[in-house]
């Protein structure tokens, strides 16, 4: 017991001594809920922005992207956490990249087979999940030092935190940009009534263009930090 504890490092020691934790203890629940709000990967940790901005033109794309990231993060975190005592620290980045890259190849092949048109529109951004900073960041910061189950929970929380920002941004962009959201199988669902257009309303073309995503995330950050002044930066 003591031998094993010294081997796996200090953080583990503390955990080994504690009585067995219930599966969904308050601490484990916080791993999932914190990244949804005050520790959000996009607005607070500022990770994984690249893909968040580029693929939020349509809700469909954003949802597919979020699900892919969710899968890659949970599977990857669990694997890295299982391997954590075997990875030499000098080459850990490469090992982590290989884990992520294999998972992303899986996702990319599945998408090409079953959702070819969405895969076409996401183009290089599926491949770029590999270098999504959230994934590498959570591997480095959490999975390398924790057991598989908490790592999987932490991954779930962060992926969901990423997902809700993506979905919110894409809903805003699609509703104001094209007036309707297209769902697979259902077709276009109009949100702006016809009478608005007759009264002189125009779709906001800026929303379809790349810069809109930056402005919307800026506003989300603004709202979040106004509600919780503790998050305000010093600089």
């Amino acid at each position, binding site marked *: 017991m003591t031998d094993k504890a010294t081997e796996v490092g200090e953080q583990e020691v503390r955990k080994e001594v504690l009585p067995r934790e219930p599966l969904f203890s308050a601490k484990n629940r916080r791993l999932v809920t914190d990244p949804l709000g005050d520790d959000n990967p996009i607005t607070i940790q500022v990770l994984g922005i690249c893909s968040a901005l580029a693929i939020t033109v349509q809700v469909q794309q954003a949802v597919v992207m979020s699900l892919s990231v969710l899968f890659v993060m949970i599977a990857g975190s669990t694997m890295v956490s299982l391997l954590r005592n075997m990875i030499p620290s000098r080459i850990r980045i490469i090992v982590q990249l290989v884990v992520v890259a294999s998972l992303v190849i899986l996702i990319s092949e599945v998408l090409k087979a079953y959702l070819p048109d969405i895969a076409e529109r996401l183009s290089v951004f599926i491949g770029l999940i590999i270098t999504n900073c959230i994934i590498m960041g959570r591997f480095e910061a959490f999975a390398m030092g924790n057991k598989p189950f908490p790592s999987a929970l932490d991954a779930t929380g962060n992926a969901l935190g990423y997902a809700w920002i993506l979905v919110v941004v894409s809903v805003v962009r699609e509703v104001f940009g094209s007036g309707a959201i297209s769902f697979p199988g259902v077709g276009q669902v109009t949100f702006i009534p016809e009478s608005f257009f007759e009264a002189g309303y125009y779709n906001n073309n800026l929303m379809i263009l790349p810069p809109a995503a930056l402005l919307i995330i800026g506003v989300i950050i*603004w709202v979040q930090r106004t509600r919780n002044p503790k998050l305000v930066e010093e600089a």
Partner: protein
Amino acid sequence: METINIFVRAIFVDNMIFAYFLGMCSYLAVSKTVKTAVGLGFAVIFVLGITVPINYLLENYVLQEGALTWLSPSFATIDLSFLSFILFIAVIASVVQLVEMIVEKFAPALYGALGIFLPLIAVNCSILGGALFMQERQYVNIGDATSFALGSGVGWLLAIVGIAAIREKIRYSNVPAPLKGIGITFIITGLMAIGFMSFMGIEL
């Protein structure tokens, strides 16, 4: 002419930051002062300029369908492109490691300037993004691919130096407290991106 056109388009029209948002993480994290921004920018140009040509050769002589015919005509139907992600990222990670060691050994002054940024770059989206765009756009020869890589790097440098200069100045302005730091940076980047859209359609 086509080569120059690709270079200019990669800087202004298809700018890595303003049109595709690649490499945003380091763009936001390392843009507090102009000096470090310049260092990171040159490191990105350097690594892009090396990895994209290597990946171009890999793509055309190993991965593409029929790319292996130089080994034997019977390999004409083999398509290894599903391996491209893992090969590209492996090339990038190892080149970054190699470059770091070579620069440290032979150019200590350059290492002092770029050294701390090089490990960051292996996971910079713009490097892998450069390789994937090169694959998607099917450049006709390695010269075009290299000029695309250098152009993207220069575009990235322009963007990060621009935002760093603005962030240095904005420290003296009265920004609403909740927007301080990252919030205002997002909005300024959005405005800069709108500015860059005026380059759309440039052809040489």
